[in-house]
């Protein structure tokens, strides 16, 4: 089943066309890697899937992106609701200036989760899913900035998982990480794909090989090749 359908999609920053005539179907409950050399538009493509690209004033697009058969660019779509449903983890960790617990629970509190006592439970579950719980369980009130880079990145993943998204976008999330953190994150992603669709822009081809069933190659914003059952 196709979770995401990208149809004749073009994307521009000002006059610069970053994505060209892109067509792609992304299947549900799989890990899809979008792979390309630097500056090939992979990050932009991921940013378009939760309309993060809207933040740039010069951004324009043509074509369409459907999630569950519905256009994400339709006027009545709530961008904030979309971003909760399509969670994104960035290349650089983005901890908020507050404690670890608050970082993970913040999105939940915005949703006005009815039963407040469930929040600690969800925070613990999310941190376990992101393979971080054992390292931080005794210091949830420490500022998030006190964590190492790898831990911060896993915290950011936990923070997104707490919102129970349908789709998880990961943009070179392991590029600054040590091999152990990377292995932990990859392990969690493999478990998580049962619950959600994961689109990742891997930081090397070995990573794509390790975790994803489907690899899409792009170059200069163009679709090059899609390989399912990818093995080097």
């Amino acid at each position: 089943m196709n979770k995401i359908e990208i149809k004749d999609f073009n994307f521009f920053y000002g006059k610069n066309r970053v994505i060209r005539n892109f067509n792609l179907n992304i299947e549900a409950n799989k890990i899809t890697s979008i792979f390309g050399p630097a500056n090939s538009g992979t990050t932009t493509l991921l940013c378009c899937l939760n309309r993060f690209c809207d933040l740039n004033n010069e951004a324009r697009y043509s074509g369409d992106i459907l999630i569950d058969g519905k256009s994400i660019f339709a006027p009545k779509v709530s961008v904030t609701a979309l971003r909760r449903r399509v969670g994104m983890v960035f290349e650089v960790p983005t901890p908020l200036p507050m404690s670890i617990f608050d970082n993970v629970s913040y999105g939940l509190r915005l949703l006005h989760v009815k039963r407040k006592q469930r929040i600690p439970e969800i925070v613990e579950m999310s941190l376990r899913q992101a393979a971080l719980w054992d390292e931080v369980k005794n210091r949830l009130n420490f500022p998030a900035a006190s964590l190492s880079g790898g831990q911060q990145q896993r915290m950011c993943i936990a923070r997104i998982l707490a919102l129970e998204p349908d789709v998880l976008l990961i943009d070179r999330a392991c590029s600054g990480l040590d091999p152990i953190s990377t292995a932990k994150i990859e392990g969690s992603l493999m478990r998580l794909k049962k619950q959600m669709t994961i689109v990742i822009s891997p930081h090397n081809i070995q990573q794509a090989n390790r975790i994803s069933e489907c690899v899409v190659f792009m170059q200069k914003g163009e679709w090059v090749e899609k390989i399912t059952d990818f093995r080097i």
Partner: protein
Amino acid sequence: MFLIFALTSISVLAVITGFIFMQGFPLIADVGLRDFLFGTTWEPTRGQFGIGAMIAGSLAVTFGAALIGIPVGICCSIFMAEFAPGIVRKIFRPAIQLLAGIPSVVYGFWGIMFVVPFIRNYFGGPGLSILAGSIVLGIMMLPTIISISEVAIVSLSHTYKEGALALGMTHWQTILAVQLPAAKSGIVAGVILGLGRALGETMAVIMILGNATALPESILSPVRTLTANIGLEMGYATGVHRQALFATGIVLFIIIMLLNIIAQHLTNRGDMIE
């Protein structure tokens, strides 16, 4: 050589402080600290030196100016940092710097020609009042608050904003819940500097506040601030009277020092959260 220049500026501070305290201290000792600070009768010719009314005046006007200047200033800096399109920002920024460059006597003149009659006509009283002073000083502290707060918000790491938006926060939630708290130390510094300006302002307040030495009864009453007291009477004061003005200076000095210490304290605490 640079050391010499650095020492010069420091030593000027030391000389001024020493001089003020030397001149003013004997009087405080004579009158008694309590009577000097809380006495409300200021009649130098009869040997009555109580500056309570002026302390109240200074604090009231500064507080009023803060009520006006802080919300307007912070909202304006948020607008400039987050919402203003490039062209608007290019016009606003120099305009606000220009606001800082207007001499205080011009502010005072504008206040007395425009704000004071307005208050007299619509609210009653003499017009020369705490309210008028608060409005003018509130405007005078705006440029300080705006420029420092704006820099504090703009210089935040963009990861805060991205992380917050990726959690499904709206732009406003991001600003209120993430960016403002993160920029808190800078904003507090701007506010304190602005308050310092309001507290130390002399020319404009002499022109607008009415300079009555009685305790103010309402925000429409005329008051005299500590700075105005020195500014008004230094020309003809001699002997004990002059000492009393120096003593007023000591009090002003200490209030501003306290303000700076609070600012330092808040800023340091802000850094530790980071």
